C-alpha cells in the first residue's frame, strides 16, 4: 500500500513543472500544454484524497476539471489561431498591443 502523501507530492511536483512552463516558455502552445499539466496535477490530488476518504465525490470533481480542460483547450486554441492569423507568430512576448 502507498501512503496518500506520495500522490500529493507527485501532484505538487507536476504542478510546479507546469508553473515553470507557463512562466518561462515563449511559445503560446507550450504555455497551454503547461496549463494542462497543472490541471492534471489537481486531478491527481483529487483522486488520491477521494480514495483516502473512501468517497467518490473527488472523482466527480475530477470529471468537472476535465470538462474545464476541454473548454479551455477549445477556446485557447481558437484564440491562438486568431492571433496567428493577425501577427504571424506564436510568441507570447509579441502580444504587446496594450504595452507602451
Amino acid at each position, binding site marked *: *500500500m*502507498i*501512503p*496518500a*502523501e*506520495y500522490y*500529493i*507530492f*507527485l501532484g*505538487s511536483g*507536476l*504542478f*510546479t*513543472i*507546469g*508553473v*515553470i*512552463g507557463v*512562466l*518561462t*516558455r*515563449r*511559445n503560446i*502552445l*507550450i504555455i*497551454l*500544454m*503547461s496549463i*494542462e*499539466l497543472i490541471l492534471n496535477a489537481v*486531478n*491527481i490530488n483529487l*483522486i*488520491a484524497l*477521494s480514495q*483516502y476518504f473512501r468517497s467518490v*465525490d473527488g*472523482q*466527480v470533481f*475530477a*470529471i*468537472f476539471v*476535465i*470538462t474545464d*480542460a*476541454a*473548454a*479551455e483547450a*477549445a*477556446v485557447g*486554441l*481558437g*484564440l*491562438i*489561431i*486568431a492571433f*496567428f492569423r493577425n501577427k504571424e*507568430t506564436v*510568441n507570447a*512576448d509579441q502580444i504587446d498591443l496594450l504595452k507602451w
Partner: protein
Amino acid sequence: MLELITFAILAAVTLGSAILVITRHNAIHSVIWLVVTLFGVAGIYLLQHAEFLFAVQIILYVGGIMVLFLFVVMLVNIDVAIKQARFARQWQVGLLTAAIVLAEVGYALYNRGHGLNLPARPMVAAPAGNTQAVGMTLYQNYMLPVEIASILLLVAMLGAVIMAKRKLE
C-alpha cells in the same frame, strides 16, 4: 511492494516526460511527450481504483484534446519558432517565482511533520462498479453542476467557432 514499484515507475514516467514537455524546441515533440505524461497520470488513476476516470482520461484527454493540440500545432507555422529562443526574456524571474511556489507548497505539506499529517489508512479493495458509483453521485448529488458544465461546454464551443472565424459581419 509491487504496488510501490508500479507507483515509482509511473511517477518517474509522469515527471520525466512533463519536464521534457516544457524543454523541447519543437512543439510537436512537446505534444508527444504530453501524451506520455497523460498516460502516466491515467496509470496513477488506475492504481487508485478510479477505473472510470482512467477511461475518461484516455478517451477524452489523449484521444480528444491532444488531437486538437496537434492539429493547431500543425496549422501554425512551427519552422520559425524552432529556430528562435525557447525561453522568454524574463525566465530567471519566472524560475525564481516557481521556486518560491515549490517552497511554499513543500512547507505547507511538510511543516516539520505537522503539515499534511494524514494518518496511514489501508487501501480498500476495489469496490465493484466504480462507474456506477460515480454515475450515481454525478446525477443525484451534483445535478446542478452537471447542467452548469454543459452550459460551459456550449459557450466554449460557440466561443471557439467565433474566435476562429475569419471575419465577423
